[in-house]
């Protein structure tokens, strides 16, 4: 039995592959999407337990996707971790404004991302974590 269902969204296919492997080894079921539109559709259809979302993507970028997810009744409770090469404070601020629950900058360590996911899913409320 899987620990949970994670949706990984990135237009960099290699990043999707390595997260698929790492989270799979950790016992998660992994869904993937290569752009924001695909991600939104899959999130509504599959109701994942957490979404890892890249910011710089064609079509719908990570911010826009996150806003859509947080505005939709069926997906707004799903924790979102933003993942981006942008590492400046202003990006983090925007990330939280659109309702993201956590933020990790590239280049990142897959092990730390897995730890972060474990922590979020192990806690009852992602809001408490944000305020900490």
């Amino acid at each position, binding site marked *: 039995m899987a620990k949970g269902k994670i949706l990984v969204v990135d237009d960099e296919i290699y990043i999707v592959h*390595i*997260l698929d492997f790492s989270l799979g080894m950790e016992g998660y079921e992994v869904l993937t999407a290569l752009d924001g539109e695909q991600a939104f559709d899959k999130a509504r259809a599959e109701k994942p337990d957490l979404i890892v979302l890249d910011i710089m993507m064609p079509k719908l970028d990570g911010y826009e996707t996150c806003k859509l997810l947080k505005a939709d009744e069926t997906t707004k409770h799903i924790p979102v971790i933003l993942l981006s090469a942008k590492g400046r404070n202003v990006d983090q601020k925007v990330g939280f404004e659109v309702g993201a629950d956590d933020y990790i900058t590239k280049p990142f360590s*897959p092990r730390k991302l897995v730890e972060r996911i474990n922590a979020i899913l192990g806690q009852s409320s992602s809001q408490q974590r944000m305020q900490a």
Partner: protein
Amino acid sequence: MEANVKGASLLELPGEALALLAEAVLAMRTTGDLGVSWGIASSNALRALNAADARLLRLDRRSGALFRYEESGVETPYLAEHGGPVEWVMRHDRAMFDDGGAGPHAARETLLWQQPPQALVTVPLVAGNTHYGFLLIAFESPRSLAAPERLLVQALSDALALALERIELLRALDQERARVGAAERRLVTAQDAASGLMSILSHELRSPLSSIKAYAETVAANLDNERAPRRRFLEVIDEECDRLSGLVTDVQDLSRIEGGETTLRLTPVGLSELGRVVCVEHSDLAGKRGVTIALECDGDGRVEVDTALVRRVLGNLIANAVQFSPEGGSVRVRFAIRGEEWVCSVTDDGPPLPAEDLALVFEGFYRARRELPGGAPSHEGTRLGLAIARSIVVLHGGRMWAEQPQTGEGSMAGARFCIALPVRQVASSRARRIARQTAGRADLAELFDAIVEMVAASLDASIVSLILVDPDRGDLFVAASLGLGPASVDGRRTTLRSGVAGAVAAWGRPVLVENIETDRRFRRLNHPQYHTKSLLCVPLRVEGEVVGVINVNNKINGEAFEEDDLALLVMLTERVSSAIERACAYPDSRRVVEDALEAVRCMTRLKRDLSLGGRRQMKRARSVARELGMSPADVDVIGYVASIHDVGMVRLEAETAHPGRLDAAQRSAVTAHPEVSIEILRPLEYLGVVRDYILGHHERWDGTGYPRGLTGDSIPLGSRILAVVDAWESMTTARPFRSPRDPHDAANELRREAGRQFDEEVVEAFLKVLHREGELRAAA
């Protein structure tokens, strides 16, 4: 009447006078305000010397006019009295102490005072070698100054001159600061643009880095994990390292090309041959994706390109097209020669390129919004590819654009990328042969330096460069320049076809650019070194071959250049060309170049030192010629002659060093100046009409002029125009001993002299021009 202060000492002054002097000097040292300095200097001088009144006359060094300076800072023009003390002091360059012995009615600059002074001290204010004005101290009764008192006046004058100098320097410093400030602001803008690129670049660099880090960590954590595809992970790391290093190379290439560090290695190559090579190169890649490449050549011929760089451009376009094509699709590569250009277009039938992206695709890191077939991301090349391609094309003097191909049914599909490059790049063999004759001649190098200075002075420009064909490589280099930093001159070369200079050399036509940023012929960013975005560029022809260009930027008053300026530059350049032509024809004669050098230097001094033949005069003379219906070629000649006809005055100026009234010998020298002008210009001039106009510009309509005493229509029309334009300029410009006339007054003078000194018709045309310029109100 002169100061005799030998053996005198300031210490002989009464204590109170010394204290007043010390206070004044100290105050002037510490303030940058002329009003305050003058207020303290004058009131203390009056008290120390028991004088009635004092005046400060400031000499404006640009115009040569005198101004009466008031403590309030208000200045009013002042005309020195004829034969008066100011004129005497200026001529003899030393102080004059008029003790009243000359009587109560001697010339004492009466207009300056409420009561006519009975004794007067007039002192020149000189700091370094510069004359800043005069200090005048008036007494109510005859008064002879004792030696220590003269020392006191001298000390005050010195301090006042220093104060004037400091104020002038402060003003210059302020202007310089403003310029530095403007330069800083431009720099910040450039840095902003650069940091925009940096932020995109850092994102682009982090993508492969992210993969490398994630995969490396995962491999390390799974060394003993049989289920982990460790070999595949290592392959990904290897691939991403390649991508990263490709990206770094591309960034380096782009900055080298855009920074002007790349020079083209030009070789002639057959166009169809070039097409075949690049298509074969990419057929494997296309085959793997089930895409076919179709090559079509419309005409063939040899073109001059840097083969390696152009293959890179074409390869990039073809690889992109293949990448976006659906399986079974085709990429059409078409080559054609159209006149002076060759064109290549690469068309695919992938998804359409959004219309709003057509102009954006060549910006660095443009992210294609076209969908790749199957949504698969691709790592073929980096997103800098198109930006690099474009900079290579621009370096060749070509253009690059994207368009939406129209299919037969009018439906939108696919995309087309096109480049157009000039067929011929390097200078012709004749031009290179001529360039070889001029290269390395020290006397010509000196002439070139003098030429850029002359052009700058003639057009009020602060940046001028003379660019020549390099005989060995056929490209262009800066042979002489003014106002360019050494970094932009050293080793800066340009292909004949790239940049404005290259384009003008290739087209062989003069160009006026009002704004380089919006000019469609050369859309590019303004170089921050140039304050204005306006420029002139004129080809330099020797024996009919373009051997270089003269480039003029950055007009001093900041306005854009106009057609009048371009016409003058063309005329000047033609004279310069003829001098170079002669130097090539008589390679062993030093004299030819020396004479031309002297002529060019005199032209510079005419504008710099005498402020004669300025752009305003040139423009007015042209307007009058147009008003009188002269042909465009004649208008150009008039404008040129208006700019240089007084060049003989440069030599006279050297002989009559002091301005002011002329004695008989000087007067006869002045009447000879038209002939002297012609003599000076001889090495540059080949048009008889130019000589005729110059020679006749002091003839009078009624026959009382010089040198030949011609009358009426027998005076060339050009000379009659110059006579009126000159008279106006001289009446309305301030000189040390003559205040400028009010325009309406001057216009009346012209009307009065019409039919006597001037041609009536020319005066009418001139007044019309002045009305149009707004110089005269319509009612007048």
